[in-house]
């Protein structure tokens, strides 16, 4: 009996050792490439197409994520010219990256052009940095998965890069621009039919006061149109306001001095001043040299105007338009002569100096609003109204967008992005 028990015990021990050895062997072998090779699957659902909304020379590659994508596995993107691919392994490797990178969600696709869900992999082949893609030429593209020494390559797919006529990614931009344009046109047509209320801008009310003061003192008025040329909206607004100021000076018989930095602006302002004097019924008072050209150089012009201020001592100085560093040099010199100063500028970096040294300042788009306020023309007033509606819309979008973006983050929701993308600038 004892011998049998001993034999049974030995049998059991041998079986147990064998099992342990077998398990150990399996565990060791599971790390070997042989085992890994059998689990590495090729990339699935590869799609290659011409990158949309671009000027050509680019292909986009999409493929499904694999369940075992991780930093230890790598993807390679392979490229060759032509449709025939005798050996995919011989294709040129144009990119290589860890398998847990390069997703559709990381790219800047707005929802209306996104080609796949955010969890899909995406790589965009572009011209440059060792890659050359010619338009109207077919290329074969594929993706390989690499793990250690092993590589599995998917079946190549053909695609042809082509230039596109429309950038669909920026359709939101175009629609918003058209919407704003539509609002402006609508507001102008409304202004033609009925009167629209305009808030009083103190700086403009002071224009009459300033011109009256200059007339009482028998001193001239100095009017500057800024540093930019006639292609700039601020100079155009300054020229429009000059027309109104010139009409008043014509009516009161006050001298007007308008030194210029740009010959074309001078020519335009000469016409505007002449027209204003005609409309005021005082063409004989108009002087051709009331508008004169000094120089286009910034500080030479400033020195010249400062000299005019100190010699002629105008009673009122108007600084309308865009200004740079010369702003304070002009306004401080003007202030030292005791003139009343009215400024209007869209140069936000010079605003502090104007606000500090001038009696009244038109800030930012108030300059554009000034021409509407003075003329009361339906086009001008309607534009102002359209701008205000645009600003109200932007305010609304800011408020709603902030709430939605916050909700999206707090509750981990994706749908707020549908609204936010509409106002995103995507290139």
């Amino acid at each position, binding site marked *: 009996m004892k011998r049998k028990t001993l034999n049974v015990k030995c049998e059991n021990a041998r079986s147990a050792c064998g099992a342990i050895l077998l398990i150990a062997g399996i565990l060791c072998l599971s790390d070997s490439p042989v085992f890994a090779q059998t689990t590495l699957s090729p990339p699935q659902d590869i799609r290659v197409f011409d990158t949309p909304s671009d000027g050509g020379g680019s292909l986009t590659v999409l493929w499904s994520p694999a369940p075992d994508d991780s930093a230890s596995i790598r993807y390679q993107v392979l490229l060759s010219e032509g449709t025939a691919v005798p050996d995919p392994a011989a294709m040129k490797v144009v990119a290589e990256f860890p398998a847990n990178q390069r997703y559709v969600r990381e790219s800047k696709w707005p929802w209306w052009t996104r080609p796949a869900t955010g969890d899909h992999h995406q790589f965009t082949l572009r011209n440059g940095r060792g890659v050359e893609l010619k338009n109207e030429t077919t290329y074969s593209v594929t993706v390989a998965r690499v793990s250690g020494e092993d590589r599995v390559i998917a079946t190549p797919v053909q695609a042809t890069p082509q230039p596109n006529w429309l950038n669909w990614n920026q359709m939101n931009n175009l629609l918003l621009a058209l919407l704003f344009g539509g609002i402006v046109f609508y507001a102008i047509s409304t202004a033609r039919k009925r009167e629209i209320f305009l808030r009083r801008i103190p700086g403009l009310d002071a224009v009459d006061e300033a011109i009256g003061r200059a007339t009482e003192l028998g001193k001239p008025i100095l009017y500057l149109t800024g540093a930019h040329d006639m292609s700039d909206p601020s100079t155009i607004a300054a020229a429009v306001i000059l027309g109104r100021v010139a009409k008043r000076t014509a009516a009161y018989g006050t001298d007007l001095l308008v030194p210029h930095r740009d010959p074309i602006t001078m020519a335009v302002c000469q016409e505007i001043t002449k027209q204003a004097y005609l409309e005021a019924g005082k063409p004989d008072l108009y002087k051709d040299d009331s508008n004169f050209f000094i120089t286009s150089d910034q500080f030479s012009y400033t020195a010249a105007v400062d000299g005019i201020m100190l010699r002629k001592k105008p009673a009122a100085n108007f600084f309308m338009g865009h200004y740079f560093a010369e702003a304070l040099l002009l306004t401080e010199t003007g202030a030292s002569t005791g003139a009343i100063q009215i400024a209007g500028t869209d140069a936000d*970096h010079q605003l502090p100096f104007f606000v500090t040294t001038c009696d009244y300042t038109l800030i930012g788009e108030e300059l554009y609003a000034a021409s509407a306020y003075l003329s009361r023309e339906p086009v001008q007033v309607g534009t102002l109204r359209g701008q205000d509606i645009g600003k109200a819309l932007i305010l609304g979008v800011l408020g709603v967008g902030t709430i939605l973006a916050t909700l999206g983050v707090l509750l981990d929701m994706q749908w707020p992005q549908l609204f936010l993308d509409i106002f995103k600038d995507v290139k």
Partner: protein
Amino acid sequence: MFHVARGLNMTFAERMLKIDRRIIFLVIGLCTLLPLLYPVGLPIKISPEVRGVYDHIESLPEGSVFLLSLDFDPASKPELHPQSISLLRHAFRKNLRVIAMTLWVSGTGMADQVITQVAREMGKESGKDYVFLGWSPGGTAVIINMGQDLYGAFPADYNGKPTKGLPVLHGVANLRDVNYAVSLGAGNPGVEAWYVFGKDKYKFELGGGCTGVMAPGLYPLLRSGQINGLIGGLRGAAEYEILIGQKGKAVAGMDAQSATHLAIIVLVIMCNLFYFSSRNRARQQGQLGA
């Protein structure tokens, strides 16, 4: 008569409020001059804006293409010249390929001088390590043209050498091939023009440098990531000099700037004290009169 009498009886506060401007000019002049003659050398804290430009240049591998647009004239030299020297020293030290240019015609000579001076100091060769393209008319049109075809916009460099074939421009066809661009702008065209007509269209990374007055206006671009760093004024230049470990005129000028700022603060506080004093006196006189 009342006014004459009042004028004769002006209080100290009222007299101080009407003080001759030239006395203020003298105070500012002394506050600028004395620290330059007797420097103090206070520590300068580095701001994240300046660090943004520095870190990006530090991250560029050797041989990367760095475009520096010196968009300023001699008027802005005190603030932007030290910035350009520090950036060029940094870029040359990192062995980047430097493309320098200017959009301001009156700054061309100064730009040529600064790049030649720093290149000589760092042992760099024109055509091989750097190129100065000079100036071309058109302002923002130049940026657009460079974005399409750099050689079309600048067929020759400032010294007349054809740009096609220069080793420093190897592989650079247009602005899309630039790794990092910095515009040192004193106005327009400047940083904003480089963003609107350059980075927005041609997708290169952009940093900015500007005068102190312009810096607050460029913070929206910085906060939204449209530029990745901003060197603002003399203070920004001083910070950059500290970062690259080569102190120069900007650090030297910070003492003068400190003294001047303090002088203006003291003047402003004084004028407010005088203002409130004279206002109270006027109120009291008004009450007595009533």
